[in-house]
Structures are given as structure tokens and as C-alpha cells.
């Protein structure tokens, strides 16, 4: 039998989740071997910045998530540009696409998400892209550099679709967004804020077609995209197509294993999967959502990092619990600042909405039985974190809910017990809630 080195901590995925875990492990265990693996060939970069790369605003070096000496300083080995093909959960090994095998003691699956590409005629044509990696951004960049007067069709008006639209417009590419639902950003925004974005996108020169979908991508004799056909038969000429209808957990390594999967890899409060010593986090995992109070996919960067951190602490022998995450978005596309968290719209009439619609700001809270379950703010977004944390800590706000959407809202809009608690370094015991000195 071939003998392989035993790695104490093996992390698949060199992004938010993987780095969060590695940093946490190094807080606890200074020496245990850590290897981070990724099929992407770069040091960890900020994925949301691929739009700045495409628009030409930021170079690859300026996208690095950590300083250049991060891995060396923390004695973290990396295997980059290599894909893991298989995980053997019985013998604790991984097999790489080049045949190499590694043995691990603790494994973190932080494989992130993969773009959803629906079955669609012509999707193999040259000039059809997805937009979730730096590689995608570079490929689009190269393709566009060969074209003049390009126009693009962006399929899907969600976060990634709007983000790529902004970059393309900045490059002088004409864009048509095709959104199947009746409004853009319909998952993370409510109707009012969607309309604000809609207006800003159109004002920047893009076309938005809602209520329709692309059924076919047509190409010319060179195999390059030349138009798309919509479900109503209409064709839109274009030289490039970006498919951005969503992402789903990247589960190829666990699909046929005994690991428990729902929509993502199911993890407990320690971010451990159904197999001991195997952890998961980030876009690949289904972890606790404190709004829905059940495990859900919450594919955003902060949740990936924190989930990774909790996994890392537990992997290295500490006991730490994931406080839960939820959807959270702060967007500034086309100069419109909007933040939303939890539910963006009330699911049914048992929810209550508290709204303040000012001249230059809009604030909406969604409540159920006196607890906040969602928020959407635009314009004046400063101090929104105070409210997010009321929601996160599940504090009963019924008696002061109307104060939370006022203009001069602050900590003093909260009951004394809560603001005193917030000003202290750690939760105060109730009897010391009168402490008059607080570090801040």
C-alpha cells in the first residue's frame, strides 16, 4: 500500500470559508499541518470584486483577500489549480485529478457554489459565460477585447446579473437584462427598492425585460453568439450572453457519499456534517438561519467566513457554536445604496410592516409577533447594524418598533437595558445593568 502523509487539517476551498477556518485553527493550534486546496489558481481573492476587475477598476493584485505573505506567515500550505476528484470518508483520503492522494484527520468542505445553467439550446456557443469566478471575469474581458461595439444579454436580474451589468456598462457594452420574474433583485429587495434599482439601471442605459426568459441562444457560422430567442419568440441580437440565474451548492464531492445533504451539506451548530471530523461551511453548506430558525442556504460572504471560523475552532479542539446567519446584502449598484437582511418582503398577512418613507430615505421593518424578521433600508443606512443585531439576538421590540425607523434613531431609542448591554464589552448580567462605565 502507498503511504501518504497525514494532514491534520485539510480544507477544500480557498475562499471566505476556507480562510475563516484556517485563521481560526491558527488561533488555537500553531503547528498542526494545514493544507488549503482549490481548483482556482489564485491566492484567496474577494469574489465580489470580480465585477471591479471586469470594469477595469481593479487589478488582480488589488483583489487579494489577505496580504501576500499570509500563507507563509501562518504556515499554511496550498495546493492551487488542482481539483479534488474524490473524497473517501471511510479511509479519510482525498484524490486529486492528477492522481495524488492525501490523508486527513479533519476535513473542511468549503467548496462554495456553482452557477446554475439551465438546459437551453445553444448554451455551448462561444460568447456564453457565467460570472462567479475571476476566471470568468478574465474570459469575458478577453472575449470583449476582441469585439467592438459589443452588446450583451444578461439572463437573470439577481445580484450577480445586476453586478455584471454595471461592469459591462462601464466598459461601454450595451446590456439587456432578461428577468423571468416581474422585477430585478426580487429575492433580496422588496418592490419599492427593486423599483429604485430598476430606475437607476435603466437611467444608466441598460434595457430590462421582465416576465420573460431566454429559450434559445443562436450562433453564427463561426459558432459565436449572435442573438437570443425569448419565450415569446422575440429575438435580441447580441454578441455576448451572461447566464446569471443563480448559484447552487457545489456538491460533486459529496453527492454519492453517506453525508447528509438537503439542498446543501447539512451541518450542526458546530458546522460539523453528519460524518464526524468532516465539517462544511459557506455556499456549499446548509447552516442555521436565525430568521427562519432552521437550516437554510444563505450564500453570502460574511456567513461563509463566520461558518468557516466556527468550523476551524471546533476542528482544532475548541468548542464554538455558530450563532446562525441569514441573508444580508448591502448593495450600491448604480449609486443606489440599499441594505437588506432577513426577509425582504412579508411572506403572509401574519407579518406586520413598520415603514418610514422619507424624502431621501426608505426604511422598512418586517415583524412577526413583536420580533424583527426582516429589514430593507435605503438612503440613510447608517446605524442599520443596531437593528440587524436586534433581529439577530431575537429581542422583543414591540414597544419601541416605531422608533427604529425614525431619522435620528440610535442606541438611545432602545430600552436602557439593551443599550447598556450593547455598550459593554460582553453581555452584562442583569444586576450590573446599571454600570456607568462602558468601554466603547
Amino acid at each position, binding site marked *: 500500500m502507498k503511504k501518504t502523509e497525514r494532514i491534520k487539517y485539510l480544507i477544500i476551498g480557498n475562499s471566505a470559508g476556507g480562510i475563516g477556518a484556517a485563521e481560526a485553527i491558527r488561533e488555537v493550534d500553531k503547528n498542526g499541518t494545514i493544507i488549503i486546496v482549490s481548483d482556482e489558481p489564485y491566492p484567496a481573492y474577494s469574489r465580489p470584486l470580480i465585477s471591479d476587475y471586469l470594469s477595469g477598476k481593479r487589478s488582480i493584485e488589488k483583489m487579494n483577500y489577505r496580504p501576500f505573505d499570509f500563507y507563509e506567515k501562518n504556515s499554511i500550505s496550498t495546493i492551487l489549480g488542482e481539483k479534488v476528484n474524490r473524497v473517501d470518508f471511510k479511509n479519510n483520503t482525498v484524490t486529486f485529478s492528477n492522481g495524488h492522494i492525501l490523508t486527513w484527520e479533519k476535513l473542511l468542505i468549503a467548496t462554495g457554489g456553482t452557477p446554475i445553467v439551465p438546459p437551453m439550446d445553444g448554451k455551448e456557443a462561444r460568447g456564453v459565460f457565467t460570472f462567479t469566478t475571476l476566471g470568468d471575469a478574465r474570459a469575458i474581458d478577453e472575449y470583449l477585447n476582441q469585439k467592438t461595439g459589443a452588446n450583451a444579454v444578461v439572463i437573470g436580474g439577481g445580484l450577480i446579473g445586476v453586478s455584471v451589468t454595471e461592469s459591462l456598462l462601464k466598459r461601454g457594452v450595451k446590456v439587456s437584462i432578461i428577468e423571468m420574474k416581474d422585477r430585478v433583485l426580487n429575492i433580496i429587495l422588496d418592490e419599492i427598492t427593486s423599483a429604485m434599482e430598476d430606475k437607476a439601471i435603466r437611467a444608466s442605459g441598460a434595457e430590462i425585460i421582465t416576465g420573460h426568459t431566454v429559450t434559445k441562444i443562436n450562433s453564427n457560422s463561426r459558432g459565436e453568439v449572435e442573438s437570443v430567442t425569448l419565450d415569446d419568440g422575440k429575438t435580441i441580437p447580441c454578441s455576448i450572453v451572461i447566464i446569471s440565474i443563480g448559484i447552487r451548492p457545489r456538491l460533486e464531492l459529496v453527492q454519492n457519499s453517506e453525508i447528509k445533504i438537503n439542498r446543501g451539506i447539512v451541518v450542526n451548530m458546530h458546522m460539523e456534517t453528519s460524518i464526524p471530523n468532516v465539517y462544511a461551511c459557506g455556499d456549499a453548506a446548509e447552516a442555521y438561519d436565525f430568521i427562519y430558525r432552521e437550516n437554510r442556504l444563505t450564500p453570502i460572504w460574511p456567513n461563509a467566513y463566520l461558518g468557516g471560523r466556527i468550523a476551524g475552532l471546533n476542528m482544532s479542539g475548541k468548542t464554538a457554536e455558530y450563532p446562525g446567519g441569514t441573508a444580508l446584502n448591502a448593495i*450600491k449598484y448604480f449609486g443606489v445604496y440599499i441594505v437588506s437582511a432577513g426577509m425582504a418582503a412579508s411572506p403572509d398577512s401574519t407579518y406586520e410592516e413598520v415603514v418610514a418613507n422619507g424624502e431621501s430615505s426608505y426604511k422598512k421593518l418586517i415583524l412577526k409577533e413583536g420580533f424583527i424578521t426582516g429589514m430593507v433600508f435605503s438612503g440613510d443606512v447608517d446605524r442599520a447594524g*443596531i437593528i440587524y443585531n436586534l433581529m439577530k439576538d431575537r429581542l422583543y421590540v414591540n414597544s419601541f418598533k416605531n422608533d427604529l425607523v425614525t431619522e435620528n434613531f440610535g442606541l438611545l431609542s432602545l430600552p436602557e437595558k439593551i443599550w447598556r448591554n*450593547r455598550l459593554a464589552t460582553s453581555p452584562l448580567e442583569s444586576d450590573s445593568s446599571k*454600570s*456607568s462605565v*462602558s468601554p466603547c
Partner: protein
Amino acid sequence: MRQFIEYDIIRYTATVFRYLVIEGITPMRKIYIKEEVCIGCGLCEVYCQLQHSSVRDLIKTFKKRLPRPLPRVRVETKGNVSFSVRCRNCDEPACAYACLTGAITRNPETRMITVDEEKCIGCCTCMMVCPLGAIKQDKEHKKMLKCDFCHGEEIPACVANCPNEALFCLELDDALTDVKMRIPSPVSQAV
């Protein structure tokens, strides 16, 4: 009243001790507020703005160089209660964990949470998770702003200019002497 102040110092010192023992690093200083003598005059905000202005002159800062730099502290007042709020460099910094670009990190030497303006894209994700609302958005420059302890100044401007000494700085040594003098045992217990 005194008793509560001590309670806080003990807790603070215990935290500091933990860092020292585990990581062998310099603990950070913190700014404390004495809310019972804060009259909400707002001078902490004013001097914070001056400190972060390109000119060290009040009149120029407030009258000539518009837009004015934004304050990194915020005074809150309600009835006769008032205090100023700023980043308190949380032990578990939600902002740093949430930062999309890696701009927010803890400086290993000072233990302060810092924003790298080069990397910051002003996206407000950090602001959304801060329980104190202590991170502010500078729309003009598309950057996030927070208390930076006046960049290593011995006494930060807000503390130095508080007319009522409602703000004060505490360092490990002070805290230790203070605690040791009065209560010898709880510290070791806390550790």
C-alpha cells in the same frame, strides 16, 4: 457606583490577561465613557473631525474645507442621558468577519480593528453587522470610517478635549494597578 466601575475593570483586565497568556501580545487601550457626567456637548465629535481633517485648524476645517471630514464618534442624547459611541474593538469583531474584501482586520500589535482604505470599497456590509452602529459610511470617498484611536496618539482627541472628563483611556497597567490595589483576588480567579 464605584463597585460597578470595578466590575468593569476586572472584566476588562481578565480579557487582557487572556490575550497576554495565550498570545503574548500587547493588550490594547480602550476608551471608557462616564455617562453620568456627559452633557452631550458634542465636542468629541468636533475634535474628531478636526483630528481627521487635512488642516489642524478648527475654522478652516469647519468653514473653509468643505465637505467637512465626518466624525468617527457619535453623540447620542435623550432627556438627560447622553454619551458618545465609537468602535470598541470587539473581541469577536463581526465587521472584520463580514468584510468582503479583507479591508477590515485586527492589527496584531495594537489589537485595534483597522480599515485599510486601499482595500475598502465602502459596501456597508460591516456597518450592517456592527451592534453599536459605530462604522460610518463616507459616501463622498466610498469608504467606511471608524474610530482609529487617532492613529496611535497617546490620548485620542475626543478624550483630550472632553470638558467634563466623561471620556477616559485605560491601559493594562492602569487597570492592573487599579484592580490590584483594591481587590487582590478576583483577577487571578478570572484568569
